[in-house]
């Protein structure tokens, strides 16, 4: 199991992405699955799916994995993954995004730097702005 959670989401393209991990180290969860019902023993990557980019169930699944269960491996977004949702994914605990083939990866990277900070805590930076401000 990876122990260092990268702070910036890694970007891949669906048409050229080859999963590096052994299949046995990967857990693929469908959107209607509760991550708490699966063993994460020996799992390096949990793959969560976006059947449509505006289906938000995987954001809650990622939160539960990262925060509630303390999963320290990769959480990978697959399916209809677009650059305009990367920031949200990163904040929800995703560390890898396999972008839809037509997406502009470089622009996606720039979009990750749009905001200085956010109001609410998230899966990575758990404190809300009001609790971290002076």
């Amino acid at each position: 199991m990876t122990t260092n959670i990268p702070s910036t989401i890694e970007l891949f393209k669906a048409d050229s992405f080859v999963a590096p991990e052994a299949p046995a180290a990967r857990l693929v969860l469908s959107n209607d699955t509760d991550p708490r019902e699966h063993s994460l023993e020996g799992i390096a990557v949990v793959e969560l799916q976006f059947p449509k980019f505006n289906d938000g169930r995987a954001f809650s699944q990622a939160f539960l994995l990262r925060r509630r269960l303390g999963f320290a491996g990769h959480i990978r977004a697959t399916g209809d993954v677009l650059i305009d949702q990367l920031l949200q994914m990163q904040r929800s605990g995703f560390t890898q995004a396999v972008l839809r083939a037509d997406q502009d990866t470089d622009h996606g990277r720039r979009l990750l730097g749009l905001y200085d900070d956010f109001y609410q805590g998230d899966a990575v930076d758990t404190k809300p702005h009001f609790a971290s401000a002076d």
Partner: protein
Amino acid sequence: MYQYSDFDRQFVRQRAAQFRDQLERHLAGSLPDEDFKPLRLQNGWYIQRFAPMLRVAVPYGEISTAQLRMLAHIAREYDHKEDNDVSKANAGLAKVATLPDRNAHFTTRHNVQYNWIPLTRAADVMDLLASVNMHGIQTSGNCIRNISTDALAGIAVDEVADPRPFAEIMRQWSTLHHEFAFLPRKFKVAITGATEDRVASPWYDVGLRLVRNVDGELGMQVRVGGGMGRTPIIGTVIREFLPWQHLLNYLEAVIRVYNRYGRRDNSFKARIKILVKAEGQRFIDAVEAEFIEILEKDGAPHTITQAELDRVSAFFVQPDLRCDRKSADEKIAHVLKAAAEDDIEFGRWLQRNVKPHKNPDLRAVTLSFKRPGQSPGDATAEQLERAAELVDRFSAGEARITHEQNLLLPWVRCDHLPELWREARRLGLARPNIGLLTDMIVCPGGDFCDLANARSLPIAQALLERFNDLDEVYDLGDIDLNMSGCINSCGHHHAGHIGILGVDKDGQEWYQVTLGGSDGTRISGPATPGKVIGPSFAADEMVDVVEAILDTYRTERQSGETFIATVRRIGIEPFKAAANAVRTHTARPAAVSA
């Protein structure tokens, strides 16, 4: 009112920059319609019948004069019919030439809408709004929408506690929430701190009422799963008392359960009300279990501290205003005496448009935007600017947009009432009809809205003209007449004492009428949807139908009985019979005897 910090200001500017980038990619062709749509919606940009519609957020309805003036500027400089190619649009039955532009519209959830700003100018408008700390964040889309509250929040005489600090805390928490931006459907939260529910909280996805427990501690009653639309449902109380410190933790639990289990296969069944109804106690149990995990396993990082509540509350201090009440009474009496010689308008205005205030030296005054010749809740650029002058002179620079689509001045000294009345009357904004028949709630309907089945504005206009006699409207007393152009219910027709719903049959406009609905205010009684009084009516029958209903009330009412009380006492049948009797096009052919 809440003062934006550097953080808040920077955030809104960065949001405007993000939208500009998305819009530029869309206009350049690299962000297709389908992918852009949810992004523009979450910034308040719809595509309507003729042009885009922008919905600007006015969190909990509070607005400054700098903001009102910016809204006026945008109306004047950007809300231009001629900048859109209306010839290519599906006009439906709308008469394009008569539709207003250079205009802003107040909505039932105290936001502001424009109907004619071309998408190519959208990013410029967002920059202008950001310059006065305004935006369109989450005014549409399947996310947590703008939080609404009572226009009398913080000044009402019947208040347990001021809901605005909690509304602001929820605004911050819900803004660009990473996990909850793509819920199954839209999600609306309302909060009231008063004993009278003036926010229609039972009709919301989450309706919160500030209450005190037996130990005098402050908390909220939490209702979940209310909503209008094609399945009107009154929300279920799932918590009688939630300590205020846990407001965000509990909301997180409710919305996480909804995000995971709400239906996504059918948008008509995707609101949380359907989940609550289908699952009942299991939904409540799931929320409570999630709440406990947030507390015990996540460490509840969003627990609101006393320091945070104090920090936010400090922005909502009452302006230090006083007046000599004795001299105010004398002034008012003087005007009343003088006015009695020609008309009784000032007295009526005091009765209908002026509300008591926590500070006995002050009053809350509503400017009426319900008058013949303009659509309910519409304000021209000029009217917004003139209203802003009144707000500066008479209300410490702060106004509130109301659920009933008017503008309320929350800080009026009682010795200023005669002067304010004269000035407001000069602007045509002193119509003393607040809470009366002509203070109707109306959505933009089929004239503008692509979703609408029928127009609401021509019906509203016909009613405003027919019921232009104030004596008659006074005699009819308190009546909520609410009208929606389609079942999406933006005009809250389900909650109207008289509800009018536009429906479409064979490309023609028809109107279904309901009676006995309630938003949950004291006069209206417990929140409930109205009952349909038979088949739909044709557009040109509608004024006669409303008149027939009101005639029935005049005949049947007992002394001092309101319209809604009469409907409750005698049932809808007598009203239905009267309405059926004035049918022309929709009359059934006389039965042929065998």
